[in-house]
């Protein structure tokens, strides 16, 4: 006996969840392919957890259709769906041993005690906790409890495995390791996983695709690379990777690239598919370079004059706060050997990559 996986796709068709007059999730549609890890990303209150709980069957959709593996499960309660979940608080039963916790789902679905125990042991082995079966959850560290929760969800061989902010109770170092472990396990077993987080870095690190949500609707869906490099709107540009938002003007496009006028400068950005006219430029902090000493003068040509308001030394890079004619800019510069001191004037230039145009 071994732990297999029976991954299945998930599809939402115009799903809404309303509480009284407010919609927590408003007419959301998406499809998750079998065997992929998809992240629901967004600020708190955006509806991502509600969406996850609707996949689990812990919340019922007010309208719309939910399909898992092509089957309509909209009205099916959690008990009858082949979906398991790793909870933010882990939700380990405090009165049961680790082994009993992992075997719980197997026992209640009618598996023989001995088989359940064997499979639970296997699940614990899989998450690197073999031999911990007889302990109580309270005797484990946070990271170990997390692994038990994952094992408990895995042994049922779910069609979909859900993670509700699984790493938020761990410290930063452990978080990085756990997220790699989860990703590795997911790819090894070929699981369909849906992962909720508000941490964009975590989302970029683990996902095949990301669904960014804001105010109950989907802001954008795409691979991590698409979302970072070609955000479709202001919210996504700002939420993922953080961007300096500068007013510019789209003057024309050809061959997949567009030309944007920014003051005297013209920049080339990926074609946003927008009509010519006013746009918003999202400039990543690492897409700006500082050149010290070259203040103002017309000789600048390819840059804009700025004043350094704040300079912070962070070892691997410098962080600058700049004042310019386009407003305050935030810059991350890898050049730590020759930093520009606060108060100095400088010229800011734009590198080719890391700039995108979005609708204003």
């Amino acid at each position, binding site marked *: 006996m071994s732990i297999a996986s029976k991954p299945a796709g998930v599809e939402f068709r115009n799903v809404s969840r309303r509480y009284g007059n407010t919609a927590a999730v408003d007419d959301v549609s998406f499809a998750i392919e079998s065997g992929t890890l998809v992240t629901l990303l967004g600020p708190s209150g955006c509806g991502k957890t509600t969406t996850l709980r609707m996949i*689990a069957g812990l919340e019922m959709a007010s309208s719309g259709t939910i399909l898992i593996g092509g089957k309509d499960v909209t009205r099916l*309660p959690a008990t009858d769906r082949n979906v*398991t979940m790793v909870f*933010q608080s882990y939700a380990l039963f405090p009165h049961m041993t680790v082994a009993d916790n992992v075997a*719980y789902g197997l026992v209640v679905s009618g598996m023989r005690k001995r088989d359940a125990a064997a499979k639970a042991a296997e699940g614990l082995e899989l998450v690197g906790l073999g031999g911990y079966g007889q302990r109580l959850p*309270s005797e484990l560290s946070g990271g170990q409890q997390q692994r038990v929760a994952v094992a408990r969800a895995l042994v049922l061989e779910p069609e979909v495995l859900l993670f509700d902010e699984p790493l938020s109770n761990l410290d930063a170092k452990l978080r990085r390791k756990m997220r790699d472990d989860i990703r590795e396990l997911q790819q090894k077993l070929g699981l369909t996983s849906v992962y909720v987080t508000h941490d964009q870095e975590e989302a970029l690190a683990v996902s095949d695709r990301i669904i960014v949500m804001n105010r109950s609707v989907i802001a954008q869906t795409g691979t991590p690379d698409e979302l970072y490099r070609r955000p479709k709107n202001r919210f996504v540009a700002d939420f993922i990777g953080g961007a300096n938002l500068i007013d510019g003007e789209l003057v024309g496009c050809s061959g997949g690239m567009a030309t944007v006028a920014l003051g005297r400068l013209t920049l080339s950005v990926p074609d946003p598919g927008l009509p010519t006219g006013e746009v918003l430029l999202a400039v990543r902090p690492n897409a700006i370079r500082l050149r010290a000493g070259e203040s103002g003068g017309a000789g600048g040509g390819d840059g804009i004059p700025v004043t350094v308001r704040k300079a912070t030394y962070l070892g691997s890079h410098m962080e600058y706060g700049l004042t310019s004619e386009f407003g305050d800019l935030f810059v991350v510069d890898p050049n730590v050997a020759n930093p520009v001191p606060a108060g100095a004037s400088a010229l800011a230039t734009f590198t080719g990559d890391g700039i995108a145009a979005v609708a204003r």
Partner: protein
Amino acid sequence: MRPRSAVWLALGWVGFALLPWFAGSGTQPAIAPPSPGPAGSALIDGLTSGRWWLLPVALPLLLALAATILPQLRSRQPTILLAGGAFGLAWVAAQGFAIGLNGWAWPWLGALFGPLPLGQGGFGAGAALTSLSFLFLMTNGFAGLGFMKGDRFTAGAIGLVLAAIAAFVFLPVAYVLSGAGDTGTGGFSAAALWTRLAAPDIWRLSCLTEAKSCGVVWNSVFLAVMTGIATTLLGLAFALVAVRTGFRAKKLLRVLTVLPIITPPFVISLAVILLFGRNGTVTLALAEWFGIPASRWIYGLPGVLLTQTLAFTPISFLVMIGVVQGIGPSLEEAAQTLRASRWVTFRTVTWPLMRPGVANAFLISFIESLADFGNPLILGGNFEVLSTKIYFAVVGAQNDPGRAAALGIILLCLCLGAFWVQRQWLGKKSYATVGGKGDNGIPLQLPRGIRIAAYATALPWAAFTFVLYGLILFGGFTENWGRNNSLTLRHYLAAFDLSWGPGGLIWSGRAWGSLFTTIEVAALSAPLTAAVGLLTAYLLVRQRFKGQGAFEFLTMLSFAIPGTVIGISYILAFNQPPIELTGTITILILCFVFRNMPVSIRAGVAAMSQIDRSLDECSLTLGAGSVQTIRRVILPLLRPAIVASLVYSFVRAITSISAVIFLVSPKYELATAYIVGRVEQGDFGLAIAYSSALIVLMSVVIALIQLLVGERRIGRRTATPVTLQEKPV
């Protein structure tokens, strides 16, 4: 979902076609007891005896059967079950209320449909089972339509709790309301209601102007206010001593809080009589040393006030101790670092934080005092309060249920009013300062003046209380207290004698009968109370459904209904068909279940709120249903609350008096009612002996359970013991 609906459907048929529809032996001889077995069932009876109105009950059963069997109706099954169940319930209730022992229950029905040749008795096993089946068919239909997340168990549980509360709390209260407007001929008139409610002996204020007694409402309210003030101050003093001073014997103060739980409420009165009655120790001493003649001053307001203060101070202490402990010490430390002196800190931080709690303690004592029955009954003398007046209106020579009902309405309104104020006003004002974060501060010592005042109030009062309990335990061994103080076992022998006869052991003592009944009733009602209470708590904490706020209010409302009102309402409601229970053991058990349920709910709610909701959600996603989740996850974690509920309901069933004194019958006599009867006969020795035996019994039971269950702790989780502070009287 099919199997479960099918089971209930089958049971519905069993109740309809196989079990006797009517109760076996009512107290009313007018109807012949039903034939045993299928012959007495609604089906046979309806077909053969001319009770045609029973036959429509089959209609929803047939409909549900069709929906379960016929495939083309499958998709509409939930709707059919819902409609059928609702119709079935409505029909059973309607025909039950409309047709009484001798035909139509109300004259206008007879005028409308013509006279009926025969009536019917109260519901029996068949009717009960069929109604239950209808209820669950209905809730299954609800769940099938997607309500309650499609969870049949939750839907069924809500239906069950609501139906039970409707039948055994609100129906009786409705009877009280209609009883108060009874015209004497079976009708209802607002004028009769008004005459009774506005009777001068209830409302007159003549005590202010002349030397007559005031209306009974003013007596009750005055007494309740005085008791409230006295107990709140004493409770506060005790709490300050226990929490904020270096007092050594804090454990002893804790014992004080257990006393009211294990003591029948009127025992304090007996002890006070031993001290201050005409032959009381103090009275005799005063007469001997100072020549003060013995008088009956204790019988009346002073005595009742004294005993109620003694009886309810521990409750107020429990409330206040929570309040005082709830004040985060770091707040006071912060005040001190801001250069406030001890006294200023107390005045500007500690006291304002305690104020809502103090008001709460006052209101609780106020309600307790209004609802108290045993103490005014024994010590009241000519000082009448509402609860005793209700009793005498039913039991005494007057035998005027309408009057009792009117008094009951007034008492009910007073209690509900105080309850409403407590919940609405104080609920929003409390500063619960205990958060999840650790508070490392050290409680501040009290300012000197307050410390001395607290000691000076609390310690003598505690000593007085312990003396009284000592007297009770000792008093049973004296021949005739005050007159002949020689020691004797006579009273204990009279109560608990055993002898050997030809048939073996004979329980020849006079108390055995009532003691066994009491224990039987308590043992039967305790698990039921815990089950209903915890089920309700589960619904309140763990489920979200429409109308939950109203549901919570309904369940808690029954808490504010005074025992006397419950008693009078039960005899008014369950003395006649369709639900005829007087004189049975069932009515006693039901009474206890619904009297003690709110405490069980509170214990369950408190314990369940501490269990993270994600635990049951997790269990659900792992494939366990609601029932399995409850059995495997929630119940094991709730053990402390279950034990608390069981112990509490068991003990309360043994010690309560106010409601059951109306419901006991010669066949089913309860210990407290028996003791009160002895006191009224002047047989103090036996009453005291029996009371002390009960107290000892209760202490042993509680100690045993503590010992057996112990305090099981799960890992780092600390199981907070549930405080038994609610005490319906």
